[in-house]
């Protein structure tokens, strides 16, 4: 059979697109063209209504048409079973747990986003390994400044009678740590967390109050 390749002259070009307007598969540009045309053309609106009715009638008709015989389904499934058995030597009825795990694992790769996720995880792992393998900074280079916390420094002189235990306890009380010293005259530089001058003063007062341990405590600029 040979189709005519042109539509009758009186038929609007948009009418040729109406069947796909009715089945909902027109691309955006075609759909806009048809929409625009339909607003001003009653002939094409009637044609569209006609096509919509035809679609409903044909859908009902086709859906009710006879199915293939069950024999056909059985034969096809048997053929697939035979081919699958060749691909995987164990028969379908004797699938081991390993096969089930294998199938489950393969199924993870079916959605198309899984390779992307896998690539992301691999990159993240490489990044983690590189970070771990970087040389650690020398402990002396570590300062609390790195943590972004405001600090202050106090010059402290301990009494000769003060024990190590007393000094450690006092430092814990003020959350301080010795960062330098002792100097030749026995002074230590202690760093303390302090948000402002009042916090520094509070800790200075606390230190000065421990006369049994502290000989002197004076602020200094960091």
């Amino acid at each position, binding site marked *: 059979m040979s189709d005519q390749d042109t539509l009758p002259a009186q038929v609007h070009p948009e*009418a*040729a*697109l109406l069947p796909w307007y009715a089945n909902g598969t027109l691309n955006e540009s075609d759909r806009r063209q048809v929409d625009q045309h339909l607003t001003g053309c009653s002939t094409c609106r009637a044609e569209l209504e006609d096509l919509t009715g035809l679609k409903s*009638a044909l859908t009902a008709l086709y*859906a009710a048409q006879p199915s*293939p015989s069950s024999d056909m389904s059985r034969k*096809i499934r048997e053929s*697939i079973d035979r081919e699958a058995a060749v691909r995987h030597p164990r028969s379908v009825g004797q699938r081991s747990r390993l096969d089930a795990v294998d199938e489950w694992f393969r*199924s993870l790769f*079916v959605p198309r986003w899984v390779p992307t996720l896998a690539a992301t995880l691999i990159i993240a792992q490489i990044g983690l390994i590189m970070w771990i393998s970087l040389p650690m900074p020398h402990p002396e280079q570590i300062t609390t400044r790195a943590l972004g916390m405001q600090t202050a420094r106090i010059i402290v002189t301990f009494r000769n009678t003060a024990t190590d235990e007393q000094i450690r306890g006092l430092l814990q009380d003020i959350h301080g740590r010795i960062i330098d010293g002792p100097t030749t005259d026995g002074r230590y530089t202690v760093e303390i967390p302090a948000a402002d001058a009042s916090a520094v003063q509070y800790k200075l007062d606390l230190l000065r109050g421990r006369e049994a341990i502290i000989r002197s405590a004076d602020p200094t600029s960091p």
Partner: protein
Amino acid sequence: MDTTHRHDGSESDLLAAVAAGQQSAFNQLYSLYEHRVFQYVCTLVYNSALAEEIVGDTMMAVWRGAGTFSHTSRVSTWIFGIARHKALDAMRRTGRQQREVDLDGIAELPHTEDSPLDGVHRKQVASLTQRALAGLSREHQEILRLVFYEELPYEEIAALLSIPTNTVKTRVYYAKQHLKQQLERLGQKESIR
């Protein structure tokens, strides 16, 4: 819009699973297409026994060739394309031209929600449409099915039938015109009786 066959994304995933050798995925795909491919092939070969043979060959080709699906078309277009090639090949081999399949039982299927009067009317309409369709050429029957039942875009129908998109559009237009003429002719005959 009818959404009878909207499975594109999930069908693509199913086909990927078939390519990986999953029989369960193939069974799902088979259930989706068994009826539709059989009906489509019947439109081409007019013989239900031969159509079953072709459907079998088609589904085996899907099982074996799922990995070759290029994702440039819908899964349905790909499967119907395989079926069409196999049907044309079978027709060349057998030289089959005569319509042998009898679809007369279709209009007799009950429709549970109908009132008796609706049921009679539905049967009459279905019977009339079916007879009008039977009077169309194979090409016109085929294209009406692809547009209105399979809901394929015109670009994919053009690829499936290996014809220009303009021919697809004009073919549908003339198929619809012929169907209308057939319906009018049959309607007149019915009223004369």
